[in-house]
């Protein structure tokens, strides 16, 4: 998306409207501009898919944690200090030999921010939101993921109250790996379900 700036100082209409909202909300004492900067910084630099990768790596390494994550993902994830801002509940869905899980939000773009950061552009785009439900196998193929025909695909539709985290299968050949090493194998896409965990090099 490119905008032509033929003037040195020009606010495009969207930027000007955001500033106008900021002005009104600050005057009304509803927001503090400094706090807005902190939120932006937090989401850009501190929260991201690495949080989710640590959750998955811990589940791979620690059967008791995996069991907890299965039963009460909200609490198990909060125990690592990754707490959702919107009070949303988390559910972890585990990939198995038989079933692959895929997460979408058909309504808008609900996403497990506390563990994955902000959603990628395609997650928010209409084609993914509509087609993930209708033709999940075709969507996965476009992501370069061809699953065996007998593997079931379960699609989980996120809501404002409930968000899903896919726990991919642990790759073979990673016995004895530390949680830090394992976390490196867990991509954002693997936790949405549009990918698998990376194979060890």
């Amino acid at each position: 998306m490119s905008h032509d700036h033929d003037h040195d100082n020009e606010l495009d209409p969207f930027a000007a409207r955001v500033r106008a909202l900021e002005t009104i909300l600050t005057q009304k004492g509803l927001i503090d501009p400094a706090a807005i900067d902190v939120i932006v910084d937090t989401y850009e630099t501190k929260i991201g898919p690495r949080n989710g990768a640590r959750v998955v790596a811990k589940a791979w390494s620690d059967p008791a944690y995996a069991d907890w994550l299965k039963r009460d993902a909200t609490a198990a994830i909060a125990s690592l200090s990754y707490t959702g801002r919107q009070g949303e509940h988390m559910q972890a869905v585990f990939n198995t030999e038989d079933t692959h899980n895929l997460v979408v939000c058909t309504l808008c773009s609900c996403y497990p921010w506390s563990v994955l950061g902000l959603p990628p552009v395609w997650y928010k785009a209409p084609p993914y939101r509509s087609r993930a439900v209708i033709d999940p196998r075709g969507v996965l193929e476009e992501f370069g993921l061809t699953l065996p025909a007998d593997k079931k695909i379960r699609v989980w539709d996120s809501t404002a109250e409930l968000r899903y985290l896919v726990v991919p299968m642990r790759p073979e050949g990673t016995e004895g790996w530390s949680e830090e090493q394992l976390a490196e194998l867990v991509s954002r896409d693997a936790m949405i379900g549009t990918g698998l965990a990376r194979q060890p090099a």
Partner: protein
Amino acid sequence: MSRRDTDMAELPPGIDAPVFAEPWQAEAFAMTLALHDKGLFSWSEWAQALSSEVKKPGAAADGHDYYEHWLAALESLLAAKGVAGKSDVDTIAAAWERAAHATPHGKPILLENDPGS
């Protein structure tokens, strides 16, 4: 939606790809979170407002206009709550645009720089 012939093909595969294309998108996002923290609306209300914007016909298939919908949802929610009416936002946004024009390059844009309509 083939990844070869749409913008999906051009998405950076990196785990840390930037999520905001422009600063105003980050500000609109952060304001929404701050207002939710303040209790101005519930997250379900927000999801509904955003959903009704992104469902409108004409949404770009590549999702590049997502934060434009986000901003429209925020504006409609604030108008519905009686916090910021559309005409007030229009007026102040126009003042910001005039202030930007009146500000020499390299200087911060301040609303006080608005020379007036």
